[in-house]
């Protein structure tokens, strides 16, 4: 099923914060997890993740550390901060309120 990409893009930051709640991850891992957990529903251009991650880092929602890989490459791992946890809670509440309202309105229209 094809989705309007605006649905996903609005909530990409919420999904990323939620993913990072459980463990620290690097860019490619985040994309792979998003695709896997959404059963391929959320497939977006992979590069768009990085501006979001860098903005989150600037805002203090995530912090990153660099790890050397086996191929001697620097890999950036992102981890949720305390501020990020608060942001996640706030975003979840926002989303729940929004989705509940939309669902209620759709149900009302069907009556």
């Amino acid at each position, binding site marked *: 099923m094809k989705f309007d990409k605006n649905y996903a893009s609005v909530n990409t930051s919420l999904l990323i914060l939620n993913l990072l709640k459980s463990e620290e991850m*690097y*860019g*490619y891992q985040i*994309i792979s997890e998003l695709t896997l957990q959404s059963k391929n529903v959320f497939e977006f*251009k*992979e*590069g*768009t993740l*990085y*501006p*979001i991650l*860098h*903005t989150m880092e*600037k*805002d*203090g929602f995530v912090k990153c550390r660099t790890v050397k*890989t086996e*191929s001697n*490459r*620097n*890999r*950036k791992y992102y981890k949720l901060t305390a501020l990020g946890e608060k942001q996640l809670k706030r975003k979840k509440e926002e989303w729940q309120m929004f989705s509940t309202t939309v669902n209620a309105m759709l149900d009302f229209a069907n009556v």
Partner: protein
Amino acid sequence: MCNKFGDFLNEIKYAGAREELEDHLEEKTNYLIKEKNLNRETATKIAIEEMGNPKEISRGLKKAHGFYRKIAMAFCIGVACITGIILIAMIPSPGFVEGNIGIIGGADGPTAIFVETDTSFIMPIMGIVFCICIGMLIYLLYSRKRKR
């Protein structure tokens, strides 16, 4: 920089993200080779395609790192400095005030002295412009801190 991703990575103007993007492309390419049995050339091509428009990514990264905000701040500082210099240059020194001086009095000395000068609106306007620039600068700095 790896040549096979060179064209893509050269479009990324924020150098701090190139290595990270290259790592992503490398891992994606390896995944496609291993899991989808593609040859390296095709896998590289697909990996780059799936990353999206490099110009758009570069714009997003610049925005994330406050590139445009820095330009705005530099502009404000520049305007404020130039306005300040003009203001300083325009402040007349007390010995060179142009205008008419009238003196009323008798032989035993003046009883009143009138000084008439031109009213200039340039100075207050410059002052306002200067204040607006300083205000914008403070706002930018403040909004940045508040966001954090």
